[in-house]
């Protein structure tokens, strides 16, 4: 472990721009959930109503957690947010530990470090120490946020401990996977797969109220039942497992060569398939993995939203004051709810679109655009290849949001036709999604260095206008710059063609302007 302290300081420096976002993000999740839940269901009568409607809805229980949590308001907060926060914390630890172990080994940085007076175990040790630090700080912030918003101190401490324990378990698991696989991406793949499996096992276990939840560390975390039963022993389970995983990782580390893994990476194709024969083929190949991830993730979110659509109606019937939070008033409450949630899907589709368009920029700065542009691929064709993925892909993500939401809602109300209705409603937002992507394209063409900022700012701006315009009382002119504002709020409002065509035309004009700019500038800086 010689040199671990020094490496820790070095890692901390390398991560100072990323880590705070993860930590504050996690704390923010709890802060928002705690204030929101206490506002909406602070009254025991409202909470009881929620227990009857939501608690009996299998789909919601599968998406959130055990219904026992709905006994108290604190438990309700944990019910809603813990499963999601667990994913965030797990990913934070995965990337953190993966980056400083296998990631560094793969790029050869570890070789440089280990050639100095540094022990074999030091890089892993430093990474785990950094994870410990991050998890403890995250826990402390979560505790401060929960207790600070008026929830009982004991339960808040338990939530914080469960989050910290869960983080440490995933840090240790990543350290182990880093010994097994040769490449950082394989490490992330394996840990990500485990995370997905853990989440699914918990969901299935909670839905069926079976012992299956005990297979999943996320299940252990939730079954501490904070604010309801305040059990501490599952936290111990998390910590002991983490320690065992670290011991296993160190044992493997001592037995292998630098750069080697237990599982060698599979060789790929020696010849390109037919699909990889054009710039567009390459762009799809590069982005298909992330597109699939977005489609599945957003579809699941749609399912989560759709599954409570029916309960919303009942819930609002019991608690009329909630209507204030939804557009369109009480009469068409479900459609208003569906419109609002599908907009969230549209914002996520735009997020995919922006990231897919910016991929072109990443290709350019990494020097990978150059060999392609040195062939008979024109600049328009090259940038167009990534735009195809961005525009068509964001359409797919949007469709997945609508289908998922419609399907789940349709199943709960016994009307499968809802799937098509919601898919159609979702696509109404496509012109606005494209307009946001077009801002990123315009940036790529005319102000390449500012392209990422332009794209993400446009998206963030639309998100603020869409989700918070009413609560912040933003003036009309501020809102009108958002393309979403000009589209009908499907399925709440009637859909007419002119606004769709106009927003599409604006998106097309911006995109073409971006392409024109790209044809005229230097490539590759």
């Amino acid at each position, binding site marked *: 472990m010689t040199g671990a302290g020094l490496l820790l300081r070095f890692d901390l420096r390398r991560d100072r721009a990323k880590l705070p976002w993860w930590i504050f993000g996690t704390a923010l999740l709890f802060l928002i959930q705690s204030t929101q839940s206490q506002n909406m269901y602070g009254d025991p009568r409202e909470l009881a109503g929620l227990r009857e409607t939501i608690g009996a809805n299998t789909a919601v229980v599968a998406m959130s957690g055990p219904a026992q949590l709905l006994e108290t308001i604190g438990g309700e907060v944990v019910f809603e947010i813990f499963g999601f926060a667990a994913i965030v914390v797990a990913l934070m630890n995965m990337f953190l530990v993966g980056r400083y172990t296998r990631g560094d080994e*793969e790029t050869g940085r570890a070789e440089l470090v280990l050639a100095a007076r540094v022990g074999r175990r030091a890089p892993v040790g430093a990474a785990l120490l950094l994870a410990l630090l991050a998890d403890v700080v995250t826990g402390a912030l979560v505790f401060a946020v929960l207790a600070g918003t008026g929830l009982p101190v004991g339960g808040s401490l338990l939530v914080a401990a469960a989050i910290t324990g869960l983080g440490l378990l995933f840090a240790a698991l990543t350290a182990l996977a880093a010994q097994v696989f*040769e*490449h950082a*991406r394989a490490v992330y793949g394996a840990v990500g797969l485990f995370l997905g499996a853990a989440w699914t096992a918990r969901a299935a276990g909670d839905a069926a109220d079976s012992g299956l939840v005990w297979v999943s560390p996320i299940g252990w975390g939730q079954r501490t039942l904070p604010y309801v039963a305040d059990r501490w022993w599952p936290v111990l389970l998390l910590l002991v497992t983490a320690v065992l995983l670290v011991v296993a990782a160190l044992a493997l580390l001592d037995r292998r060569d630098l750069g080697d893994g237990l599982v060698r*990476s599979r*060789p*790929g*194709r*020696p*010849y*390109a*398939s037919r699909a*990889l*024969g*054009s*710039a567009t*083929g*390459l762009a799809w*190949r*590069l982005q298909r993995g992330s597109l699939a991830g977005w489609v599945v993730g957003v579809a699941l979110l749609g399912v989560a939203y759709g599954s409570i659509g029916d309960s919303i109606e009942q819930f609002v019937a019991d608690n009329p004051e909630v209507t204030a939070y939804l557009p369109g008033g009480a009469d068409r409450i479900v459609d208003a709810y569906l419109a609002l949630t599908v907009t969230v899907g549209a914002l996520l589709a735009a997020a995919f679109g922006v990231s897919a368009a910016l991929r072109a920029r990443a290709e350019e700065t*990494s*020097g*990978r655009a*150059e*060999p*392609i*542009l*040195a*062939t*008979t*691929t*024109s*600049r328009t064709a090259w940038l167009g290849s990534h735009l195809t993925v961005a525009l068509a892909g964001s359409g797919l993500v949007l469709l997945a949001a609508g289908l998922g939401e419609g399907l789940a809602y349709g199943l709960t109300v016994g009307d499968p036709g809802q799937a098509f209705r919601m898919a159609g409603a979702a696509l109404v937002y496509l012109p606005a999604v494209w307009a946001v992507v077009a801002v990123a394209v315009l940036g790529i063409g005319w102000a390449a260095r500012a392209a990422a900022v332009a794209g993400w700012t446009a998206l963030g701006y639309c998100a603020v206008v869409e989700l918070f315009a009413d609560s912040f009382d933003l003036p009309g002119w501020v809102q009108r710059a958002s393309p979403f504002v000009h589209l009908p709020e499907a399925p709440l409002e009637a859909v007419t063609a002119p606004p769709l065509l106009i927003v599409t035309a604006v998106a097309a004009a911006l995109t073409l302007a971006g392409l024109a700019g790209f044809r*005229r*500038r*230097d*490539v*590759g*800086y």
Partner: protein
Amino acid sequence: MAAISISGLVKRFGRTTALDGLDLTVGEGEVHGFLGPNGSGKTTTIRVLLGLLRSDAGSVRLLGGDPWKDAVALHGRLAYVPGDVTLWPGITGGEVIDLLGRLRGERHRARRDELLDRFDLDPSKKARAYSKGNRQKVALVAALASDAELLLLDEPTSGLDPLMEAEFQRCVRRVREEGRTILLSSHILAEVEALCDRVSIVRLGRTVESGTLAELRHLTRTSISVETVRPITGLSGVHDAVVDDRHARFDVDDTQLEPVMRQLAALGVRSLTSTPPTLEEMFLRHYGPGNGAADGTGNGDGR
């Protein structure tokens, strides 16, 4: 017609002037060495030739066309090996080679497989599993498998082992026999000496020397070591002379060779060895401060 003709090329990046009136002429069918210290503007020149960068001044003709305006049409006739080969993680070397070939509208499976064999490259490895040398080989095989009339090679052998270097030289000779043109930027002088018909040396974004190796040598000094019958006295027109009775070692400017030889002949030459300047010495003089270009601060970076 020249394959490449550049005159007075200027390229600025903000306040840095990367190319400052560069001239370069590469005849058809010739292997042209493109030399210069780090940061002297070789890569920038090649990127202008590829139409990736727009020139600020000067005229550039490539295969009879304008590299900026006719980029797509010209790219069908050339192949390129970048100096810094970055590949796509998760895509195998074989796939990259096929993709680049197809994007140029070519399919040469037999030649491709032969080259993979010669360069001892495993095409089924994912890009991130390749070493630096092997990444370089992927780009090389992709370029050498094509039948483009012009090859732009930017330090194509950096990172290759000596065996592969020899293989590369064999391939380049074959390309030359087929009458195709190569612009070869390189820091490996032995390679340049072995392969190039003509060379151009750039410094600080300007061409300081251009011609055949013989012509360039002409401008330099030859080292001579001689043993004479009579004791040596009063040699004129030589540099760094070390005289010891009947033995002498000195350098002589090639223009002064004849008078010096006459003096020696008068003394009765018993034995004489003459060593032409190594390319190394020649370039060190051109690269180094105070030579070639007007000003002299080592190299181009940090101006």
